[in-house]
């Protein structure tokens, strides 16, 4: 197959395993492009992309913008903090205004679940979801799975533990869909209050003891504690969370094997992940960031070629 089955990337749930493989194979080629003396190809030179961020972002926004520029697309940026959204404009009005300026693709982050899905029914442009509330973050899941494939050769048959704040994490949900579609086994691990009640219906294991989770897995994807999304207290203190769920070198040295450590960033150092692990030899955190640009180039390129 040479074409994606969809013209929007709204979530991993909506795409097929073949789509993911095609994105990976295309990203392999873009990774080679990124290692050339001139890291730019002219593929999207007739395309304009709007990055619309209704929620804060550093690396995702930067990564998308770099990917777009490496593909020679024209880029416009929009963030809600200094815009008419503050004056009461609706989402569709805002986006339609941007589209009137002849924009072909929209990369959007929004704090509401389903915002890009809603938009995809209202407008013509291709839409890439860069995170919608606590729902999905598809490009992050793609780059995570791509990084596992790069490190371990394949995703199929691998055991991946997602550890931390599962309840508020869009990365967790997208990762579960992506990893399962590629044939990996997935476990979620965290305090009982941070694991959604019905997560087992997705066919994942649930574990509350981080030692057992680490002993089980080949890859540990550590998630950030999202204090900004927590309206109530889910655990007594950060110190206590760190004591029970923080990953440090001592924990890893007690294992009889080596596991791969991942984190989607930004890291709360000393809370969910200690510096001795984050900067250690088993961490592929910076590879994830590097792969993010190649994966996003592949997604934008492939979406642009869907008629």
């Amino acid at each position, binding site marked *: 197959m*040479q*074409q994606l089955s969809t013209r929007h990337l709204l979530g991993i749930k909506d795409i097929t395993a073949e789509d993911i493989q095609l994105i990976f*194979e*295309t990203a*392999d*080629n873009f990774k*080679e*492009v990124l290692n*050339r*003396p*001139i*890291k*730019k*190809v*002219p*593929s999207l030179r*007739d395309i304009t992309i709007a990055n619309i961020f209704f929620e804060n972002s550093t690396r995702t926004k930067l990564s998308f913008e770099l990917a777009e520029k490496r593909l020679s697309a024209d880029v416009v940026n929009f963030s809600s903090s200094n815009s008419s959204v503050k004056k009461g404009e609706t989402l569709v009005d805002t986006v339609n205004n941007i589209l009137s300026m002849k924009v072909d693709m929209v990369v959007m982050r929004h704090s509401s679940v389903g915002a890009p899905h809603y938009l995809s029914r209202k407008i013509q442009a291709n839409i890439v979801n860069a995170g919608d509330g606590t729902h999905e973050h598809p490009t992050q899941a793609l780059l995570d799975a791509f990084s596992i494939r790069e490190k371990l050769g394949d995703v199929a048959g691998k055991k991946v533990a997602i550890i931390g704040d599962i309840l508020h994490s869009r990365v967790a949900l997208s990762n579960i869909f992506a990893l399962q579609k590629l044939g990996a086994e997935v476990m979620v691990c965290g305090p009982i209050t941070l694991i959604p009640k019905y997560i087992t219906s997705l066919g994942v294991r649930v574990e509350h003891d981080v030692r057992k989770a680490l002993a089980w897995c080949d890859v540990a994807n550590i998630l950030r504690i999202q204090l900004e999304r927590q309206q109530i207290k889910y655990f007594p203190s950060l110190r206590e969370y760190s004591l029970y769920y923080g990953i440090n070198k001592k924990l890893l040295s007690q294992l009889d094997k080596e596991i791969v450590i991942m984190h989607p960033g930004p890291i709360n150092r000393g809370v969910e992940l200690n510096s001795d692990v984050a900067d250690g030899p088993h961490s592929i955190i910076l590879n994830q960031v590097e792969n993010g640009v190649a994966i996003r180039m592949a997604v934008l*390129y*492939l979406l*642009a*070629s869907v008629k």
Partner: protein
Amino acid sequence: MQDRLILDQQQLDITISRMCHQLVELHDDFADTVLLGLQPRGKLFAKRIQTRLSEILGHEIPLGFLDITFHRDDFRRRESPLKANATEVNFIIEEKKVVLIDDVLYTGRSVRAALDAMIAFGRPAKVELMVLIDRKYTRHLPIEPDYTGKAVNTLASQNVAAEWREQGFESDNIWIKHKI
């Protein structure tokens, strides 16, 4: 109309040897020259050239493979998108003489894209084009080969098909076939 065989195994071997000697005539010991095969179809022909050249000169000649998918001028205009292939260029082409190698020269658009893609690896001192089959009078761009295996007259309803042993064929054969 029937398919027409334009080069069989024996003729192809002679042609490849002749083209290699032409290269040696102009590039001497290949100290400043590299070969660049175009993905996907020029790859096998480029490998043959490299193997024969190495036999003649007694040392390995650098060969890279260039994929031009991201540089094509028909992206989003084609019915079905093309899948990209691997680019393997493990040398810098800055100030080198580059011989671009492809199996069939038709409209010249692939070569234009290849010139564009090649620049990402440096500024070459000189670029030459070598093709196995030149389809005459079909160019859309002012591009002509420096080394030609065989020039043929073809119709728009025909295409040139190269069969190589590496692809599982019993022997190497180059055909003019009718599009189905």
